[in-house]
Structure formats: C-alpha cells, structure tokens
C-alpha cells in the first residue's frame, strides 16, 4: 500500500554519498540560496506525494471512523472506533488474516530458496548469460491477472491440462487446502524471479577472491555458501524478504481470479474489497484497509528493527 520499491538493492552497493559534517557552521549566502533552491526543486515532488499518498491515507482513516454505507447515505455519522471493534471481533477477519499469514510465510520461504538457487545459477552462468536472465524473468513480466487466468483454466476439470493429470473428478480449486496450495504455487511461480533478481544483486557483493581463498583453505561448496556467501549477502537478503513479505501480505489478484475467495481462501485484501465494493460499506471497508496498513507497517518495523534490514534509501549499516 504505502511502501513501494525504489531501487531496492542499489543502496546496499553505494557508499555514503557525502561525509557528515561536524557541527553546524554558519552557512554562507550561496549555500543558503542553494538550500532554498533544493527545497523548491523538491516541492513539486513533495506536493505530489502528499496529494497521492498522504491524502488518501488520511481520508481512509477518517472514513474508518465513520458509520458510512453508500446505500444508507442518511445514516452517516461519526462512529469512533466501533468499526475496528466490529472487524477485530469478526471471525471473517481472523480467518482471512490466518489464510493471508499462511500464504505469506509459505510462499516467501519457498521463493527465497528457489530464488537463491536461481540467483546462483544466473551468477555462475558463463555462456548465454543474457538469455538465462531473460528467460528466468519471463514469469515476472506476465501480468498477474493473465497468469492467474491461465492457472485457473489449467486447474479446472474438463478444460485444464493440469486438472487432467489428477484423478478423475477432482476439482483442486474447490477445497480449502488444495486451493490455498495452488494459490501459493501461482505466487511462487510468479515472483520467484523478482526474489532471484534482488538476490543476484546481493551476490555481486561477495568478492570472488574471498571465495577462492576459502576454497584453497579447504571449504566445501556448502561451507562457502553458509559461511561466506549468505552472511555477506545479508543486507540484500533482508531487503528481498522484506519486499516480498509486504507484497505477499497484500495478495489479491491471484485469489480474486483463482477462487474468488470461496471455500475459506480469502485474504485480508479480498475481505476489504468485498466490504468496500460489494457491500458498499465504506466505514468497515476502510477500517479493514487501515488494519492491513498497520499490519504491513508492523512487518516492515520487525524487519528493519529486529533483523536490521536496511530501510530503502538509508545506509547499509543503518547510520542515518
């Protein structure tokens, strides 16, 4: 929702741009003028950011405190936190929350393992490097909804080539466990390349000399991976996991197409959509959106504070 990627891996590689000053000496006239110019140059961007992100977020928070249903415009009134109470005491919210959490944890874990393997392959490829990287990226380049439709056809009995491989009469998208497994599969297939790309940037940080030295000292491939490569890649790994976790937590399109949220497969984003756009209940729908926003913020906080992932745009060692 709020956190969007901005050159995610780049900050790990760049050194701090300008040295930090000691104290605050009186600025010269020229420096002050330049600073003013800098603010002026930033102003349009700040204005646009406020208009497109801060305003909608503020509006959503305001809506979430109202009783506001488009079907009953006369009943609009301030409702305090009652919408949040309704959502947090509802079984629908908690089952959607658990499904979302399950999909997030499993898909990100699988993506990480596969993504790392792909990154190692791409890093080591000598011939056809460009071709390998292009091929690996294809799933990520396909529009999610289009890919989801083709998965849906593939898993539908009678029309699907994948459903035809299953025993007769099985409709895997109609059971909770099997449908969630297929949603995870679609997610993994789709976003592993993204993970691989972020990890590949991290792999570039590992000096070849170090690996060669370790090899001379008798470290096997597994030891080199766990003792040298992974620790050196840690900043990149944490950024990759952070981005994918935030993305996966907001999963919507794959579920919307594959199951429509039936049979207990709905995510929190689906729940928000249904309450906003099918029930037209802006108050409760906005409360759900704000709760998703808070959950996303907590995930980001955990990654940055507890695991020490570098926040995008800050120094790799978190000085700023």
């Amino acid at each position, binding site marked *: 929702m709020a956190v969007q990627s901005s050159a995610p891996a780049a900050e790990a590689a760049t050194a701090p741009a300008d040295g930090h000053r000691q104290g605050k000496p009186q600025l010269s006239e*020229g420096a002050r*003028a330049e600073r003013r110019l800098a603010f002026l140059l930033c102003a349009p961007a700040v204005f646009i950011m406020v208009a497109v992100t801060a305003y909608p977020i503020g509006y959503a928070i305001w809506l979430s405190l109202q009783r506001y249903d*488009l079907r009953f415009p006369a009943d609009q009134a301030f409702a305090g936190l009652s919408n949040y109470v309704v959502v947090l005491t509802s079984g629908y919210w908690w089952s959607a929350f658990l499904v979302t959490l399950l999909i997030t944890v499993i898909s990100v874990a699988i993506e990480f393992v596969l993504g790392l393997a792909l990154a190692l392959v791409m890093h080591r490829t000598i011939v056809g490097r460009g071709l390998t990287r292009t091929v690996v990226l294809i799933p990520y380049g396909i529009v999610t909804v289009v890919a989801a439709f083709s998965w849906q056809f593939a898993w539908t009995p009678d029309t699907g080539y994948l459903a035809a491989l299953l025993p007769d009469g099985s409709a895997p998208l109609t059971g909770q466990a099997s449908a969630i497994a297929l949603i995870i599969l679609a997610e993994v297939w789709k976003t592993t390349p993204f993970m691989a790309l972020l990890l590949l940037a991290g792999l570039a940080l590992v000096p070849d000399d170090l690996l060669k030295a370790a090899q001379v000292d008798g470290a096997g491939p597994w030891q080199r991976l766990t003792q040298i490569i992974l620790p050196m890649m840690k900043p990149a790994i944490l950024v990759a996991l952070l981005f994918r976790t935030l993305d996966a937590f907001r999963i919507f399109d794959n579920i919307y197409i594959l199951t429509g949220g*039936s049979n207990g497969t709905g995510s929190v984003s689906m729940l928000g959509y249904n309450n906003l756009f099918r*029930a037209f209940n802006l108050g409760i729908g906005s409360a759900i959106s704000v709760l998703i926003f808070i959950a996303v913020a907590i995930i980001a906080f955990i990654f940055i504070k507890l695991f020490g992932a570098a926040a995008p745009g800050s120094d790799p060692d978190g000085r700023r």
Partner: protein
Amino acid sequence: MRAPVHPEERRRGRRPLVVAACGLLAAAALAGCGSAPTGPPVLNYYTAADNAAGYAAGAAACTEAAGGRYTIVQQTLPKAADDQRLQLARRLVAGDTAVDLMLLDVTWTAEFAEAGWIAPFPEDEARQVQQGTLEAAYETGRYQDQLWAAPLNTNTQLLWYRTDLSPTPPATWDDMIRQSEALHQQGLPSYIETQAAQYEGISVWFNTLLTSAGGQLVSENGDVLVDDGDAAYQAASIMQRVATSPASDPSLSVAQENDGRLAMEAGTAAFQVNYPFVNASINTPPPDGGGGGTFIDEQGRPTAENTGRQVRDVFAWAPYPRVDADRPASVTIGGFNIGVSTTSRHPDLAFEAVQCLRNRENQLLNATEGGVPPTLSELYEDPAFQADYPAWEAIRDSLENASVRPKTPAYQSISIVLADLLNPPAQINPDTIVPQLAEQVERAVNSEGLVP
C-alpha cells in the same frame, strides 16, 4: 529573505517552463469540457453486456420513434452483475450527469432507491408501466409503494428432466430425491443439478425453497422473518439432503447454472432446476449451443456408441418441484428493469424513453434474439415467442406464482452471508443453521458487521 544567487538567470530560465506547463494544463482542462454537442438531448442508456446488440437496436428504434426530440445512446457495462452494479454505483455516487437510463438487476431496486441513485416514476408513467405487465415482474420494480424501475425482461426456473429415467416428473423435492436415489441404486444417471456454489445462485435456491414452504427472509421494513415457523428448517434440510444423498453430483458445491446444463447434456444428470436457456442450448448444435448429442443406451446411461437415441430426445420440462405438496412452488424471479438516474439532466425525456424501450417490439426482439422472457403478458400468446420458447406455458405459470427476493437495500449483503452459511450444502445442519441465518441476516440488514 535574501535574494538568491543569480536570481535573474534562474528566473529567466524557469519562466518558459512554467508558461509551458500552465499552457498544457489549461489545454487539458479545455479539452475535457469540449464544446456542447448540438442537436437533440442525448440519453445514455447503460445496459448489461449480454445482448448488448439487442439493447442497442432497441435504443436506435426508440431514437427513430422520438422524431428528433431525443437520441438514446446505448452504453455497454461489464458482463458480471457485480461489476455492472459497481460501475453504476461509482458513476452515480460521483454525480455523473451522463447516466440517464440504466438496466438494473431486479435485486438492486431497493438499494438504488434508498441510496437516492434512481428517481421514482411519476404516477401516470407508473400506471402506464403496470398496464399489461406480469404482476410479479412489476413487483420487482416497486419499493415503499412507489415504482422505481420498469420491468424489461424477466426470468424463472423450471424443472428439466429425462423422460426415460422419470416417466412421471417429480412434483415435490421429496419425490425427486426418492426417484434420484432409486436411479442410483440401479446404476443409472441420478444427479439432481441445482445452483449450490458460493454465489447468488445458492441464495436464490434457498429463497425459492423458503418461500415455497411459506416463509420469508426479510420484510420490506427490514424485519428479519427467516426464523419464523419451520420454513427455513424445511428449506435447509432439503438442501442438505440433496447434497448428501448417495445419488448426488460430487461437484454440487461448486455448481452454477452452466454446470447443471453441461451435466444434463453429457447424460449424467436426471434432473435439473434451471433457467430456460438450457432448453435452447440442448436443442442448438455446437458451437452456438451445447447440443444434446450425447448417445444413451437402452437403460439411459451415456455411451460413446451410436445407439440412435440421444439425450435431447428424452429432455422435457415440468413445473418447479414443490416443498409443500399442496402449494405450488414460488420460484424466485430474475430479470432486468429500466431505471432513471437522479443525476440525469433530462428526467422527463428519460421516463418517456423507458416506455418505448420496453414496448412490445423491443421485448419481443429481446426474447427472440437475446433469449430472455418478456414481462408483457400478451407476448406469451405471440406465435414468434412461442416458437422460440416451447416451454412458454410452464414459464408463464411459474411467473404467476413467482416470489420476489427481499426488497431491502441490504440485499447484496444478505445474499453474501447466505451463500457463505449455506455453502457447502452437504455440511448444513438444519437444526443449528436457522438461528445463525437469522443472526447474520439481521446484521446484514442493519449494515453492521462484515461480509465475508
């Protein structure tokens, strides 16, 4: 504030840019307004995507008939009902003056009326709409003693069955379940096809059973009546028995209208409750229809051999099965009505146009080309309609006993919670579900709580 370094140069450098940007913005704003079109007022008529060509033809005919007083332009909405509703709601909430006429699903009347999105018909216009219109169809356009939308077409379900497997079609659900289980024991096709997936269809199935048993979901004032008497218990237990019977279709819990049609055409179903499109489909060879070309053997099992006997030869219809043997079933009515938006600049012309859009010729065109039953009762006597609808008599009788879905602005929420509670039907516990239904429907009516 001190002057910046080299203020002159910087200003000079920036000015052309600012001027260019302002110019661009102004041009964009102007282009948005455009010049007002000359000629008669334009009425935009938003219709569903299915049969859009038919609605466009109707709009063109009425433009001609208006003799230059107004022009009706048909605009196509998405295919899915939810998407149509969402797009209309977005435009109306935003006060879009380019929406004049809308095709509204019969379930939206109360919602759009209560939200102030559609205007009630003036007395005389309403009287004119009522003239010759089927009672139940007219009722779908009414809310709080006013007419809000004029019926264009309607729809109802019948029982479609196989004459070879069931020489006397079942009159009640009990009878149908018994026949189906007997067929299953003989190893013959036995499925009863209904709409039981988690969507509007299962809510319609429940509402039909409930009203056929003499019950009601919600009154027009918003009182929850679903737990009055034992009608809801009867309805829920029929659904549960159909789904748990050894003779039932294993994929019933995901079946929609089309799945029932396909099972029937493939020869695996003995019975289905469905809309009249299944009759057109089984009698139309592929690719336009499904075709009923599946061969069946002496006993009625589907076979790959050419036996000379096909499913379509033994396909027939009967009234919708009853819940109570003494009372005809009251089937939930469907269809589209035409509403006039409150944002329209020309409401008077729009009401006038409604009368034309739903006149005899346009309804007949929609029935023969679009395959939807008309709402004018005299058309059921029309040979052209009867030729397309061999089951016209059963359809008309079914419409005469039809039930209307609850007239409450919260209908969509009610339908969503019903579908969630009733699906999968095999897991319904008739003893415990009625209080749950009452509680969830109550919350939905008051727009409290979440929809799943």
